[in-house]
């Protein structure tokens, strides 16, 4: 029967998408559930509600210092790679560079190079030139892997950029530097925010490079991994994970809210 076909298609689609959503989010849901579970062991049935793992988190100075390290590294990395990304994306879109394609390939290469290789070679290189390890070493490594993402995001933003707008600003008496701040920057803000948030998240989540380069200043993922060896610390690790998810959610919601504010302003008369 012809009429049943679309019906069956819809059911299949429904089954597929709900299956996909479960697969995607169920494991993540384990974290908050067990972070409030009053037991050291990750197993059903649940034992009872508690917030003591969260209290333990706050009482543990090494977790706090790992969190601070991670935030510092992620902020500096996001800032650095976004600034470099803006400069690169502008150079690639404004000027017709010789060998543009190979330059772009070179920039994008770190995305496909295994992080394990990057981590090891950075470890060797940094030791060799005597810069040592620690937060700055991690920032260097993270900037390396975040930079291609920043370029990719900003490139698409700058590609749609009308050169005449900059020329119009120059024509109206503004220097190239002022033109950048009055025209290019405000128009690129959505891309810059997106690049900052994405590179921040990548750096914040990254484990392998941080593991090799962080030395005595572990980032949150490195610290978490270290805690997994102690069964008694596992529930607070889950609590920590839950907090990270909550923060990520807030950040993404905030970014989306910001974006909508901008478009609303664009539609309603300003001033």
């Amino acid at each position, binding site marked *: 029967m012809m009429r049943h076909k679309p019906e069956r298609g819809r059911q299949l689609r429904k089954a597929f998408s709900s299956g996909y959503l479960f697969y995607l989010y169920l494991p993540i849901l384990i974290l908050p559930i067990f972070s409030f579970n009053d037991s050291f062991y990750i197993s059903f049935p649940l034992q009872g509600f508690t917030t003591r793992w969260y209290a333990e988190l706050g009482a543990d100075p090494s977790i706090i210092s790992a969190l601070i390290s991670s935030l510092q590294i992620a902020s500096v990395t996001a800032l650095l790679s976004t600034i470099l990304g803006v400069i690169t994306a502008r150079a690639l879109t404004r000027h017709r560079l010789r060998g543009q394609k190979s330059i772009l390939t070179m920039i994008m290469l770190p995305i496909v190079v295994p992080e394990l290789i990057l981590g090891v070679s950075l470890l060797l290189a940094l030791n060799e030139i005597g810069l040592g390890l620690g937060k700055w070493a991690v920032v260097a490594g993270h900037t390396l892997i975040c930079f291609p993402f920043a370029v990719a995001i900003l490139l698409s933003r700058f590609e749609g950029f009308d050169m005449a707008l900059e*020329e119009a*600003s120059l024509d*109206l008496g503004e220097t190239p530097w002022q033109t950048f701040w009055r025209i290019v920057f405000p128009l690129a803000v959505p891309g810059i925010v997106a690049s900052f948030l994405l590179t921040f998240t990548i750096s914040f989540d990254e484990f392998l490079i941080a593991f090799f380069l962080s030395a005595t200043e572990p980032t949150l993922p490195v610290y978490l991994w270290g805690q997994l060896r102690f069964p008694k610390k596992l529930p607070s690790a889950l609590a920590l994970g839950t907090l990270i998810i909550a923060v990520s959610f807030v950040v993404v919601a905030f970014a989306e809210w910001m974006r909508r504010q901008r478009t609303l302003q664009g*539609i309603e008369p*300003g*001033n």
Partner: protein
Amino acid sequence: MSESKYMVEVLNASRQFDDCLALDNVDLCVRRGEFFSLLGPSGCGKSTLLRVIAGFDHADTGSVHVDGRNMHGVPPYRRPCNMVFQNYAIFPHLNVYNNVAYGLRLFDLSKDEKRRRVEDMLAAVRLDGLGSRSSDQLSGGQRQRVALARALVRQPKVLLLDEPLGALDKTLREEMQVELRELQQNVGITFIFVTHDQEEALSMSDRIAVMSRGRILQVAAPIDLYERPNCAGVAEFIGDMNFLEGVTESTASGRSAVRVAGIGVVEFENCLVSEKPGLAHRVAIRPEKLRVTSQRTDAEICIPGTVVSSSYWGDQSQLRVSIDGCATPVAVAAHNVDPLQDHLPARGSQVWLSASCSALLRFSEQGS
């Protein structure tokens, strides 16, 4: 301070791009307060010339003077010119008011003075009350006015306009032509207007420079350009033109007799440069200078022909008439003033074409 007669002087300007010569030894002098048009087909170098004057491009050789000042090495933001861009380049993140006020930041004006100046300008381009509109709420015509106001509010010495009416539909374009011309006369600023639309150039300009392949063919007032083009290139580009083959028979004391294909021997009261008997050249006549009648007339030139095609356009009728001795039929534009013409000569009917000798133009084969 020596007041130059000219507001903009371009001397010997050449500009070579990768594979084309965009400007080929261009000389251009634009008078103060003039509405000056650069007219030519796309790719003729008119936009390049405008960008060289604005400072967005540079000439490889030659010089540009604006108001007597050499513009060599002067960046666009220090030139006394402002530009209206082809697609207006309205800043999308600013509202109308802030777009217009954009170029006033570095002016030494108090807040009130600035506000008054912007609002006066908005009123001058009939955008009063729309200051708080955002750029994506504007129609094409309004965007054009914002671009105009934004440039004029700085009171530039020269306003450069790069095909500003090209993006508008026909009715709006004609409306804006009149408005733009009026505005120019009110503010008294020198306008240099780039266009590929000859009617636009003819109806608006004080003078027009016709460009082709990086060179200026002729600079003249609209009437001179149409009635007395200096070369076949200009004659061909401005309006419609019939070209006939001509060979000089004899020359004597500044007069010459020419055998014109399809017409016969015609006496001209002028000579071409180094004209000698036997010189082959082109003789031209505009379609509307030919009159179609069914009977022979006693005009200076009157030749028989056969109608090849005819079409009725309302205000005028377009005919193509083949005459003996001419390979291509000549075009005739008959203005439909006579009520007796209630029907057009049909295809194949015999007619007479008459014209006066003064309507014939001559061009030597070498072009300009």
